[in-house]
């Protein structure tokens, strides 16, 4: 055919890609099974990822600001948060050590937050003094509700210098 003579390279390329019907159907089937397999894997992963959690709510009220004396650090056991009141105002610091997750303790006599597990030490504003922890303790967003109670949102991390003035 004149087409072959004009484009021998094209004809050659087409000839090399010749695939029998049997092989074509095999490849199509394997491809389809592969896609189905990938889809199955994705669905299985979604199955294992829980959608409803029965854990403590991450936004909680911490009571009236007057409960907290000035220059105090109060440990809230259930939520694992320190409510710190300085002369400037309030901030909420996580009590979970940033090293490997143990719950820290407030040491008023040394004016520091200390972790019993591996000896990390933090200032009340979360800044690290010593120990294997690397990041400082995160600050959670704290604000006042409409009826004048403190409210902390553990899902919102704020900058360490942000303070709630009351």
């Amino acid at each position, binding site marked *: 055919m004149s087409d072959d003579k004009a484009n021998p390279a094209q004809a050659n390329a087409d000839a090399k890609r010749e695939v029998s019907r049997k092989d074509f159907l095999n490849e199509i089937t394997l491809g389809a099974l592969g896609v189905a397999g990938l889809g199955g894997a994705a669905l299985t*992963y979604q199955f*294992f*990822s*829980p959608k409803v*959690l*029965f*854990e403590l709510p991450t936004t909680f009220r911490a009571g009236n600001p007057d409960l907290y004396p000035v220059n105090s650090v109060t440990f809230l056991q259930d939520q694992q948060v320190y409510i710190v009141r300085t002369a400037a105002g309030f901030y909420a610091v996580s009590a979970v050590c940033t090293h*490997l*997750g*143990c719950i820290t303790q407030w040491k008023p006599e040394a004016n520091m937050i200390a972790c019993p*597990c591996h000896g990390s030490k933090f200032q009340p504003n979360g800044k690290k003094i010593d120990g294997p922890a690397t990041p400082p303790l995160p600050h959670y967003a704290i604000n006042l509700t409409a009826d004048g109670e403190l409210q902390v949102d553990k899902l919102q991390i704020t900058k360490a210098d942000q303070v709630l003035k009351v």
Partner: protein
Amino acid sequence: MGTSFNTALESLRTTRVWKSIFRRGPAITNRTRSLAVFGNLFLHWLPVKVREKSLRVRAAYYLGSLSLLLFITLVVTGVLLMFYYHPATPKAYYDMKDLRFVVSNGVFVRNVHRVGAHLLVLLVFWHMFHVFYRGGYKPPHEFNWVVGIILLLLTLFLSYTGYLLPWDQLAFWAVTVGTNIISAAPVIGSEVRFVALGGHIVGENTLLRFYVLHVVILPLLAFLFIGVHLWRVRKDGGLTVGSKDDDGQN
């Protein structure tokens, strides 16, 4: 008295019931003796012959065999413990107290399981070091070494998931620390931690997931890989076979 027992046994062997179970006939010829092993579901895994040298203690100190035996012991004691254990918080902790102080011989079963678990970890490490020392990882046994490493990882995962189940302080913080280490992995770390824990915290979801892993999934995988591991050893000729050169010749 001995002979009357023997004659009783002989007459038992002529009954139709017996002959329907043992169809090969009495194992008195070489053929029927072989059939006694080949034709049996539980025995046909075993080799027909073994080298006498491989049965000596010095061959491999029975480390692999002891690991298997200890694993089976752990499965048996584990199933016994399952009759009294609820994988729920905080009942799990009180169930362990029950097993120790209330259940008859519960303290024994629990201790065999716990001590056995520690011993198994020790044994498999020792077994691995010995195989390495003797060069048992060289061709054509490379793949079996890899299977062995997979078994080591399964043993460690079984140990780790089982550690949480008593739901005491030791268990809780060990899992907290371990899963926090997972979350330090780049990109996928916190996602993997979320799925492993079944949430953001070590809680009831975590206990249940670790229980299912410890009791169903990991033991099934372990049985599978133990099968492959032993099959490979047997097909390669068992212990005390000389190592082959790269071209497969002795």
